[in-house]
Structure formats: structure tokens, C-alpha cells
């Protein structure tokens, strides 16, 4: 029931807001790409969905910080091209994240550039880049 009411509430408020509806796909100029900020934490959730995969941690800028942070990156299909799979990063992994922060700097989140699993040192990047043809 709660979920149902929550769903109704969100849809109702979105409609009542008028003007621009809120959608999940966008350009990336709300992130400050000139900066790179490092965040440490433990993964709580990975949402492997189009059009943008999101990754959530509990942690912060300093060891011992324990706040919720969220990071956004490109689509699952594009991440596979960079070597990711849906299960590359899992809840419970201790990670180090490099990100482009939101331009409004009081948000705890940004555009994911690189995530490293602390235990193994394996890292994954998320920029789409030109590649040579493959598999001839």
C-alpha cells in the first residue's frame, strides 16, 4: 500500500508541478567536468538501467564519513564497451570513486569517472570513447 501511495504521490506532484516534467535522460552540463573529486565508501546499490546507470554508496570525502552519496554514469550497453558487467560492482564492495561533482556543490554526488574496488585494485572507467574496429 505504501509503495502504491508513494507512486501516486510522486506522479501527482510531478503533474501538479506543471512546466517541465522530470525525465531520466539528459546532457551532462550540470556536472563540473573540470574538477575531479575522490569519494570513499561502501556500495549500497547499483541500478543497472537505461539510460544512465547509477551507483549509491555510504561514505564520504574522508575515511569514516558515513553519508549517502549517489553517482551517475552512461548506459549499460556503453559500460559493457568499457569492460563493465552488471555485477562488476556489487553492494558491500568497498570502493574509491573519482567523479565530476555537481555544479551546485552542496550535493553529495556527481558524474562517475572511475570506480576502483579497494580489495582488488580493479578499476572501471565510464567515459564513452572512440575505439578501433574489433574482432576481424
Amino acid at each position, binding site marked *: 500500500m505504501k509503495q502504491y501511495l*508513494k507512486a501516486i504521490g510522486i506522479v501527482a506532484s510531478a503533474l501538479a508541478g506543471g512546466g517541465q516534467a522530470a525525465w531520466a*535522460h539528459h546532457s551532462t552540463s550540470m556536472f563540473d567536468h573540470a574538477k575531479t573529486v575522490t569519494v570513499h565508501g561502501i556500495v549500497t546499490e547499483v541500478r543497472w538501467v537505461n*539510460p544512465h546507470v547509477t551507483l549509491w554508496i555510504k561514505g564520504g570525502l574522508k575515511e569514516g564519513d558515513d553519508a549517502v552519496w549517489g553517482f551517475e554514469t552512461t548506459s549499460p550497453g556503453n559500460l559493457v564497451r568499457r569492460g563493465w558487467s552488471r555485477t562488476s560492482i556489487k553492494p558491500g564492495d568497498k570502493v574509491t570513486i573519482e567523479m565530476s561533482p555537481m555544479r551546485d556543490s552542496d550535493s553529495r554526488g556527481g558524474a562517475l569517472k572511475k570506480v576502483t574496488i579497494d580489495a582488488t585494485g580493479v578499476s572501471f572507467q565510464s567515459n564513452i570513447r572512440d575505439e578501433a574496429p574489433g574482432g576481424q
Partner: protein
Amino acid sequence: MKYVLGAVSALMVAYLAATGSPAQVPKGTIIKGGVMNPAPTAKDYADLGKLPDWSGVWDPKTSDQNAQIRTNPPPWNAKVQPQVQKMFAEFRAGKPRPIVVNCLPHGMPSWMLITHNPMEILFTPGRVTMLGDGDGNRLRRIYTDGRPHPEEPDPTFHGHSIGHWEGDTLVVDTVGILPQSFIAISEAVGVPNNGDMHIAERIHVVDKDYLHDDMVITAPHVLTKPWSTTRQWVRQRARRLDIVEGVCLQGSFVEGKDEDGNAIFVPEERSPYGNFIPPK
């Protein structure tokens, strides 16, 4: 009486012709007519084997997409030019115009201009079909069976496309695109074509693994003259890079449960620019 019945029948026939309404047609009548698409023959399938190899997954060359924003801007007309400049300014200020965030198809020509997800191209008798990964609802049907455009095509996101082969080059002609379909040069800069747009394409493989789409876009309501641009893709064959389903709207929902414990999708809030809302 006969005269009255005859008149009523004539009216029914006229009504049927005008509306095609089955409710007016005597039970059992089969509506006939119109052009038939013939069943393909074994020769039709064999002829597909003579076409160039466009198999694999095609990744757009995103560095070229980005470069052409500067090097090859469309010839916007005087009414549109200031709107485009304003969009660039908004983008630089971190408040991008959200022109493609609503998960409607990018449509033509924007699929070829800005979409940075891969696509694949299928050959079947009488048809070339392009299918996209991600960015929702990307499908182009290019009819190569010699048919003309309809006189008044129903407007659609990708238009009505007909094509023929000149050697190894597919020559495509597209009309009937919705006026709301953007000529987008980035995800934050572009204007609707506003109708009467025509797109001519010559699509061909270069250097074995590069697909080039030489486009000429004519949009009399927003461009001062036809705009030429060549867009490029790179071929990949690794199975791990196969095209995957990508439903754009899925990102606007989270996994939840209904009151009976069933797995459902629940809408989730997004920012006005379309991105997720990180915690504060």
C-alpha cells in the same frame, strides 16, 4: 421502396468507402484492394548475399559528433540562430536545454547526429532495417522494394524512407517526419524541424569497418539552405558487445513492491534537467 433501398445501399457503400467502418459492412464482407507485399522467394534471399557486409554492431564516432558541433554547424536561419546561441549559453551555465530528455525517440535526423549508443543493420527482402541500443524506440525501416513515398505519409519520428542500391552504396530518401522531430546537434542544442523536412542519404562502408552516412538535410522552416554532414560508425563483432535492449523510460522508475508483494516499477523523481537527484 426499391428506390429508397437502393439509395440507402448507395449511402452505406459511400460511408464504407469514406470510413472503412466495419460496422456498416454486411457480415462476412472482406475488404479488398490495395497493393500487396509479395512473399519473398528463394532468389530474393539469395540476392541478399550479394549485398555488402553491414553485419556487426556499429558504434557512432562520438569524437566526430562533438567536433562537428563547432566545425560544421547547420545553416540556421535568422529566426533560429539566436535561439541556438541562447541554448549554447544555457549549456555553458550548467543549465542545459533538455531537448531529448523525455525518452521520446530522437527521430530523424537526430539519431544520426547525436545518438551515442550503438546500432545494428538488418537486410531482409525488400527492406533495410536499422535498430538501436538504448535511447528508446530506435527503429528505421528503409523500403528497397521499389515503392514510392505515399502521397501524404503519416508523419512519424523516423519518417518514410525508400532506398535503392548503387553498387555498394545505399541511397535513401526520407520524408514525412514529424515537425516536432529535432535537428539536434547536441543533447542540449537543437530545434524542431517545424515540418516539410527532406533527408537524402548515401550510406556506405569505408575501409572495411567504417560506415559513413553522407546526409543532406533540407528543412525550409529552420535552415537557409540544405545542410550536408557525414556521420561515421565503427564496426564491432565481439559477442559481449551485442546490441542489448535499452528502454529509456526505465530510468524514471525504481523497483518496488505493490501491496500484494508483487514486483512492480514505481516512478521516481528526477531533476528538471532530467538527471538523478543526489542527496544533499
